[in-house]
């Protein structure tokens, strides 16, 4: 009797699960959580993408901003949502990885599975257009002779720019001074006013800035970004500095494999749409699709690398 009941219950549950899968995604809207305030780069990117995904999946995708704690609030919300494929969130590295180092999190990072990477935007170092540093080598030479004299504007401890700076210090054997600012725009103002010698920006931010006032020294990707094909990578110049900010989408890992695959396919199709590509070009988004599985496979190596760099911070550098 009990066994029959249990079996019957299991059967019902199984049918419901299959039914839910079959109906997905048309039965309910898919909520897209953005980990940043409205108007930021990630927010605008996903709000631009959402209508294309809606058309592709034939459903509604409302965007909900849950900013704060460099993404932890959004990731916590994602990990607590029902894993039925009706909640997705933005996913940003290196933030998602660096917050796992030495910080107690309110969610389990292993619960968050990438769906697809949309953008890879390499970091870069920028000086004033009229600066004496015409190349990364100039800057390194000056910093060698004057330890600590070169001030580098960042957007805080453990951010992209700060990690890139620490890597350059290590690769070139120099000593720089990190100066945290409230955001990229504050840092740009300080650079224009000559209050810091150099700042870190993403290539996307650099190409949309007034190019006449700034000069980029190097970019920190493995390969030159499509946005800045003229700018050498740090590796080409002989410095082992790798730092890109990647933006994409993620879902709870318990979301059925098929649903995640369909979401990823929808992103892939949207990215190939010329209409979307035109909008991405206007926003200077360096589109770079990567499947969720491939993106996830990259992460352990990067996490290990960032953990190494963080040890330098704790070491008092």
């Amino acid at each position, binding site marked *: 009797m009990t066994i029959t009941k249990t079996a019957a219950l299991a059967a019902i549950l199984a049918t419901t699960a299959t039914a839910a899968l079959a109906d997905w995604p048309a039965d309910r809207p898919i909520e897209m959580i953005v980990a940043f*305030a*409205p*108007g*930021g780069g990630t927010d*605008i990117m996903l*709000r*631009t993408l959402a209508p294309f995904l809606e058309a592709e999946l034939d459903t509604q995708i409302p965007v*909900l*901003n*849950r*900013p*704060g*704690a*460099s993404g*932890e*609030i959004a990731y*916590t919300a994602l990990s607590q949502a029902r894993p039925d494929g009706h909640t997705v969130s933005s996913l940003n590295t290196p933030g998602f990885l660096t917050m796992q180092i030495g910080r107690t999190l*309110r969610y389990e990072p292993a619960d968050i599975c990438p769906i697809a990477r949309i953008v890879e935007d390499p970091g870069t170092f920028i000086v004033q257009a009229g600066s004496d540093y015409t190349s990364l080598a100039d800057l390194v030479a000056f910093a060698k002779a004057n330890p*600590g*004299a070169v*001030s580098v504007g960042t957007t*805080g*401890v*453990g951010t992209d720019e700060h990690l890139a700076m620490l890597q350059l210090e290590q690769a070139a054997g120099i000593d720089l*001074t*990190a*100066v*945290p*600012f*409230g*955001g990229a*725009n*504050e840092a*740009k*103002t*300080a650079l*224009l*006013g*000559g*209050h*810091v010698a150099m700042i870190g920006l993403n290539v996307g931010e650099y190409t*949309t*800035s*007034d190019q*006449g*006032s700034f000069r980029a020294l190097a970019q920190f990707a493995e390969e030159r970004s499509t946005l800045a094909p003229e700018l050498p990578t740090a590796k080409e110049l002989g410095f082992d500095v790798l730092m890109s900010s990647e933006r994409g989408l993620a879902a709870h890992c318990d979301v059925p494999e098929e649903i995640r695959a369909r979401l990823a396919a929808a992103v892939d199709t949207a990215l190939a749409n010329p209409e979307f590509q035109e909008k991405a*070009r*206007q*926003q200077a988004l360096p589109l770079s699709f990567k499947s969720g599985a491939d993106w996830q496979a990259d992460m352990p190596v990067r996490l290990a690398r960032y953990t190494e760099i963080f040890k330098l911070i704790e070491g008092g550098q």
Partner: protein
Amino acid sequence: MTFIDLLMLGFSEAITPANLAFCLLGALLGTLIGVLPGIGPTATIAVLLPITFFLPPLAGIIMLAGIYYGAQYGGSTTAVLVNLPGEASAVVTTLDGYQMARQGRAGAALAVAALGSFFAGTVATFAIAVAGPTLSGFALSFGPAEYVSLMVFGLLAATILASGPVLKAIGMILIGLLLGMVGTDGATGAERLTFGAIELFDGIDFIVIAIGIFGFSEIIANLERSGSEGVKLAPLSRLWPTREDFRNSWGAVLRGTGLGTLLGLLPGGGATLASFSAYSLEKKVSRHPERFGTGVVEGVAAPEAANNAAAQSSFIPLLTLGIPSNNMMAMMLSAFMIHGITPGPTVLTNQPEIFWGLVASMWIGNLLLVVINLPMIGLWVKLLTVPYRLLYPAILLFCCIGVYSMNNRIFDVILAAGFGLLGYAFRKAKCEPGPLLLGFVLGPLLESNLRRTLLITQGDPAIFVERPISLVMLLATVALLGLMILPAFRRTREEAFQEEEA
């Protein structure tokens, strides 16, 4: 092209029916959200930003700009009529504006606010057109060291601005500084005063504190009254200001406009800082400072002119350098970027119709706002007759929506309610919350800039006296401190406030 040609180009762009319609729409929306406490231009523009995808670039930007300066007009209406700042920048307008309304001079206060704002808007628009490219250099010479000196001066000035004993004002500033420390420490990444709450990682939002201390506590205080019949209206003899009002306010409008235009240029400055500063300046130059807070027209004219001038001049760093000076301008920057336009000197040369079209539309928008606001003042005044039992739940609702919609979380609403209780306690203790807000805003700026300065100079504090702008501001601080300690000044100040309380 000459200046006149460029201006004509701008007007020919701004006056097309579509652009004119979007300008009017922005001005109307701005007035509406300005009137409603708790719903600010930042939240509104954030919501409308995606819609501008579908508009031509200039039309979208004209509309968003209209919302921002329209809110400066609307904010004063609530400040005068209900003693609630409809906008953060209208906080000081409540001090004298509401008193004027209680004396039956609401119409005069609103008219002075609108006309003063129009004058300031006209001047600031002209400043953008004429001096934009040159003035932005001034903002750039403000480095971390200059900021530190400016903040020190600002905090000291705040103790003078406050009514009541200096000790209470200093206490309120210290509480503000403490609240400003909540969150992640920018220089080390350590958590401070968060008590493990993830919602406090990024600190407390200005809106949460402002709505709590001004909005909620006002409503709590009103529960003490027995009647629910609304404010007893003194007979409104005239809506137009008297000749005397005009004579008293023109100087204040001029000073407010000048100060606002300058402060709008500074990164981190903007409408709120401008209105606070203009009010304290007015109090200082006045021959009868003791009457401030009792309904003097200068106390409305100066901050209202200043906040509108600053709202407009803060476009200068954005349009000429691509640098947003506050979070409103950061939203505007996004609006430009959506259309693939990067604000900066290149726009001035390659797409002059964008820059000049916006400048021309600002002037047209200000004209529209006077038309929207002045004939409709009678309508706003009618709001006073709405019974509290209807008005206050509505205000409470809008406050909650405003706080919730910032981050989509209920935590902020509860926090604001807590600040409401705190604000009520401050009222009972006769502590003015103005300095608390100033400490809260300036504290984090002071701290991060002080650390930046010392990082850049590798620990050498001499930079504060070596840089001329910083030195001048520090000398002004010392002078102010000396004045405060001088017995003669202290006596005058105490007398002034005693009269005010009487």
